[in-house]
C-alpha cells in the first residue's frame, strides 16, 4: 500500500478510485484464498503458504498476486481458492494441489477438473460459481463482494465503488432525506425482531439529548448462526460505511462496534478497517471534508448470550454486567449512558450503503412488500450443502432447504427446521411451503431471529433438542427476572426427567404453563421468546413427548436412558475395533469371535455405534434386546465365510 491519501471531498474519492483502478491491470492473474474462520479451520493458511512457495519456485511471484479474501458462504467445501480473471473456483484445495493449479490453471489457463465442485446429484463438475445449485437460487447483495475484497485493504473496497454511498449521503442529501430514504425502503432490523429500521432512526434523530451514539451489534450469540461473523470478516468496510451514514443521519459523533470475543478474525479485521478509514479521512474529524465527525471504537464481548439484547449490550459497553433493563423508554431515546443510541445489526448496517446508493425503490422491489430486501441465513445441520445463503425475502422454505441446501444428508427424512436460534421455533414438514419472511414465520410460532437455520432429520429427538435449548438458556439467563431464572430451572429438570425416562403424565401440562408464563412476563426479548422451542416442539411433536413419557421410547434413538446398544451377530465381522475403543470395557469377544455388549457395564456413550464400519451396532428403544447367542465360541471366521 502506498502512502495514505486523505480524502477531503467526493472528487478526491473519485480520483483515488481511478488511481487504484489504473494501477491494477484487469488481466493480471490473482489467486484469492478464503481466510475466514471456516476455511482456516480446514487449513487455508497452509494452502496459502503452499501457493506462495510454488509461485516463487516457478518465478511467477511478480506476475501473480495472492489475495486473502472473505467467505463465500460455502464453508463445507473449504478451503476455497478462486483464480481471477477467469473466476474459476476450486474447492477442497489441499497444499499439495498448489503446484498443479499454478502450472495448469495460471500458466496454461486450463482448468483443473479434479478440484472443481462436483454436483452431488448429477456428478458433473461445475466451473462457474453461478451454475452451482447452491448459488443458483441466491441473490447475493451483501455477500457478493466478499470474495473480491481483501478485508485488510481499504483500496479493494474503494475500487469496487465503496464509500460512494457515503459521499452521496454527505453531499447530496440532508440527514432528513437519508432517514426518509431508509424509511421508504421498508428495511426491517436484521437482528431478529424485524423492527422497521427507518422508524428507529427517526426516533433517535428526534430524541432530545446530546451526544448521540451509533452502535453495531455483532454479538452473534445464537448457536447455529455465523453470517454476522462472515460479513464482519469478509467486508468490514461495508458495515463501517453504513455506520457513518447512520451517524450522519441521526447526528451522532461517537460509534461503537460490539463484537464477540470468540470471533478473533472479525475483531482484527474491523479494527484494521477503522484504522485505515481514519488514515483515508473517512473517519475522525471532518469526514470527507464535511462537518461530520465520528469516532468509532471496537468493544469485545466477553461471552454472554444475553449481551446481544439491545439494552444489555449497551450496559456491557458501559463496562458493567450486561443485563437487560425495562424498556418503558426505548433505547433509541435513552440508551448508552442514557443518551439516544441507535443500535442495528451488522447486516442492517451493511444494507444501508446499497439503499442510499441505489434508492429505496430498487431495494423495495426485492423481496415481499412487507419484508423487503434479502436475508442471509446460515443453513446448517443435516443438509447436504451447509453454509451461508443470501436469498430474497419470501422464498419458500422448501426451496431454501431442498434446492439450495440440496436436501437432507444421507437422504434421510426431513423432520423439522429450527429457525432463529434459541428464540425461534421448530417448523415441521406441513409448513415447508410457507414463504420466509418476518410475519409468516411468526405465524407458525417461530421467528426470523438472526437467521440461523438448523435442519434436523429423523435422527434428531425433538424432546432432546428442546431440552438442549432450555439448558442453554438456563446457563445464559442473567437471572434478573424470576420467571426466567426459576422457570427455566424447573423446565430443565422436567425435561431432563422426561429424557431420562422418568417423565410423569402431568409434565407436559407443567411445561406448557411455565412456558406461557415466561412469554408473558419477562423483560427482554430473549427471555420472552425463550419458550418458543419448547412450545413449538410440544405443538408439532406432541406424540414424541408422549412416547417418551408413556412408552419409555425415544423414536429418534437419542435419549440415552431410553436406548440400548446391541451388536447384530449377523453383521459383526469381529474386527475388534469397538472392543478396543469401548471406554467402559463393556464389549466382550475376541479375534474371530462375535462381539457382545454387556448391558450392565455399557455406559451408552455411542462410541461403538460411531466407529463400526459394518453398521453392525444397532440402537434399540422401547423393544427388548434380542438374547445373545449361547456360546461365545468362534461362529464364523473373518473373511472365511464361504
Amino acid at each position: 500500500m502506498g502512502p495514505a491519501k486523505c480524502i477531503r471531498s467526493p472528487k478526491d474519492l473519485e480520483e483515488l478510485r481511478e488511481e487504484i483502478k489504473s494501477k491494477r491491470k484487469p488481466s493480471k492473474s490473482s489467486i484469492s484464498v478464503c481466510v475466514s474462520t471456516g476455511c482456516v479451520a480446514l487449513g487455508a493458511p497452509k494452502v496459502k503458504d503452499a501457493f506462495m512457495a510454488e509461485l516463487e519456485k516457478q518465478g511467477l511471484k511478480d506476475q501473480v498476486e495472492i489475495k486473502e479474501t472473505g467467505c463465500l458462504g460455502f464453508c463445507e467445501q473449504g478451503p476455497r481458492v478462486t483464480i481471477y480473471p477467469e473466476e474459476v473456483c476450486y474447492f477442497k484445495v489441499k497444499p499439495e494441489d498448489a503446484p498443479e493449479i499454478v502450472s495448469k490453471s495460471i500458466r496454461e489457463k486450463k482448468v483443473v477438473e479434479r478440484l472443481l465442485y462436483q454436483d452431488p446429484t448429477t456428478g458433473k463438475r461445475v466451473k462457474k460459481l453461478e451454475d452451482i445449485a447452491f448459488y443458483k437460487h441466491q441473490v447475493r447483495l451483501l455477500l457478493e463482494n466478499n470474495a473480491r475484497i481483501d478485508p485488510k485493504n481499504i483500496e479493494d473496497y474503494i475500487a469496487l465503488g465503496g464509500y460512494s454511498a457515503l459521499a452521496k449521503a454527505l453531499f447530496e442529501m440532508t440527514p432528513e432525506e437519508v432517514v426518509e430514504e431508509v424509511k421508504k425502503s421498508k428495511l426491517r432490523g436484521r437482528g431478529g425482531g424485524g423492527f422497521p429500521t427507518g422508524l428507529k432512526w427517526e426516533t433517535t434523530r428526534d430524541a432530545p439529548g446530546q451526544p448521540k451514539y451509533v452502535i453495531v451489534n455483532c454479538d452473534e450469540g445464537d448457536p447455529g448462526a455465523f453470517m454476522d461473523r462472515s460479513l464482519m470478516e469478509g467486508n468490514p468496510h461495508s458495515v463501517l460505511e453504513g455506520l457513518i451514514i447512520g451517524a450522519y443521519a441521526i447526528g451522532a459523533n461517537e460509534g461503537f462496534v460490539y463484537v464477540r470475543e470468540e470471533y478473533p478474525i472479525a475483531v482484527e479485521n474491523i479494527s484494521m478497517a477503522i484504522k485505515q478509514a481514519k488514515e483515508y479521512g473517512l473517519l475522525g474529524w471532518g469526514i470527507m471534508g464535511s462537518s461530520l465527525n465520528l469516532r468509532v471504537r471496537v468493544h469485545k464481548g466477553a461471552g454472554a448470550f444475553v449481551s446481544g439484547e439491545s439494552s444489555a449490550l449497551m450496559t456491557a459497553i458501559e463496562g458493567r454486567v450486561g443485563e437487560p433493563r425495562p424498556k418503558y423508554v426505548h433505547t433509541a431515546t435513552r440508551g448508552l449512558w442514557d443518551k439516544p443510541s441507535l443500535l442495528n445489526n451488522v447486516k442492517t448496517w451493511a444494507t444501508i450503503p446499497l439503499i442510499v446508493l441505489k434508492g429505496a425503490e430498487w431495494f423495495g422491489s426485492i423481496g415481499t412488500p412487507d419484508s423487503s430486501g434479502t436475508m442471509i441465513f446460515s443453513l446448517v445441520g443435516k443438509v447436504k450443502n451447509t453454509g451461508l445463503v443470501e436469498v430474497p425475502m419470501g422464498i419458500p422454505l422448501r426451496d431454501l432447504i431442498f434446492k439450495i441446501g440440496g436436501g437432507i444428508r444421507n437422504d434421510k427424512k426431513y423432520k423439522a427446521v429450527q429457525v432463529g436460534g434459541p428464540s425461534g421455533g421448530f417448523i415441521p414438514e406441513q409448513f415447508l411451503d410457507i414463504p420466509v419472511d418476518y410475519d409468516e414465520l411468526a405465524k407458525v410460532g417461530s421467528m426470523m431471529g438472526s437467521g440461523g437455520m438448523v435442519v434436523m432429520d429423523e435422527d434428531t429427538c425433538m424432546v432432546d433438542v428442546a431440552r438442549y435449548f432450555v439448558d442453554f438458556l438456563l446457563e445464559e439467563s442473567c437471572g434478573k427476572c424470576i420467571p426466567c431464572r426459576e422457570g427455566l430451572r424447573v423446565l430443565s429438570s422436567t425435561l431432563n426427567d422426561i429424557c431420562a425416562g422418568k417423565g410423569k403424565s402431568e409434565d407436559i401440562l407443567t411445561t406448557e404453563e411455565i412456558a406461557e408464563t415466561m412469554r408473558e412476563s419477562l423483560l427482554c426479548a430473549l427471555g420472552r421468546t425463550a419458550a418458543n422451542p419448547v412450545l413449538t416442539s410440544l405443538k408439532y411433536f406432541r406424540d414424541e413427548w408422549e412416547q417418551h413419557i408413556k412408552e419409555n421410547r425415544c423414536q429418534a434413538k437419542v435419549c440415552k436412558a431410553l436406548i440400548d446398544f446391541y451388536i447384530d451377530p449377523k453383521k459383526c465381522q469381529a474386527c475388534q475395533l469397538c472392543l478396543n475403543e469401548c471406554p467402559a470395557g463393556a464389549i466382550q469377544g475376541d479375534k474371530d469371535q462375535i462381539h457382545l455388549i454387556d448391558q450392565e457395564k455399557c455406559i451408552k456413550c455411542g462410541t461403538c455405534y460411531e466407529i463400526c464400519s459394518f453398521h453392525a451396532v444397532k440402537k434399540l428403544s422401547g423393544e427388548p434386546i434380542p438374547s445373545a447367542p449361547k456360546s461365545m465360541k468362534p461362529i464364523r471366521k473373518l473373511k472365511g465365510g464361504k
Partner: protein
Amino acid sequence: MVLFVCQHCDYKWDYRGENEHYATCPRCRYKVRITEDKVQMLRQKRWTWSSASARSGLDTAVKEKPVKLIGIAGIVNRAAEDYQYDKSMLIQILLRLQKDFGWLPMEMLVEAGKQLGISINQVYQVATFYKAFSLSPRGRHLIRICTGTSCKVRGAPTILEKVQSFLGINTGEVTSDGRFSLETVNCLGGCALGPMMIIDDEYYGNLKLLAVKRILSKYT
C-alpha cells in the same frame, strides 16, 4: 498539538485553553487572536480528548504516572493505560489481562478496581458474569468444544464425552498434570464444519471420534 506564536515576543507554545477568540501568551501576557483555521484545529484536538476523559474523570492528555509500578500493579497499569483509564473499558482491560496472563487472580481484580476507581464489588460482578473470564488457573492448553445447535445435531455430545473420559475431567476442570483445561462454548461460528473443537488457537473441524485421541496426544 496546536502551536501559537506570540506576535509581541515571538514565544511559541502549545495552547490548550478553552477560549476560542484569543490566547494569552504565557510569557508577556499579550493577547493573540485565534484565526478561523486554528479554531478548527483546537476543536478537533479537544474532541479527540473529550469523551473518554470526561467519563473517567481524568484528563488523559496530561495524566502522568507518579511512580513506576511493578509486579501485578505494573501489568494492570499497562493495560489500563492503553485504555486511558476509561471505566467503561473494564471488560476490555480484563480481557486483555486474561489473554496475557491466562487467568485472573484475585490480586489482579483488586488492582484493576483500584486503578480504574471502580469498587472491587463491581469488578468481581463483571468477572463472574461473563463466560470468558476464568478466576482459577487454567491448564497449559485450553480445549474448547462447541456445543452449538448445529454441532449438537452432528454429534458434539459424543465428542465431548470422549474427551472427558480420555482426560478424566469434567467440563470446566483442569487435568491433574495441568496439561489441559476443558471448556464448552456455545458457538464458534464454524457451524458448517461441526462438530468442532479448538485447542489453543488451532481449529479442528468435522471431528471424528477416533481422531480425538490422536489430536490430544499431539499436545504436551
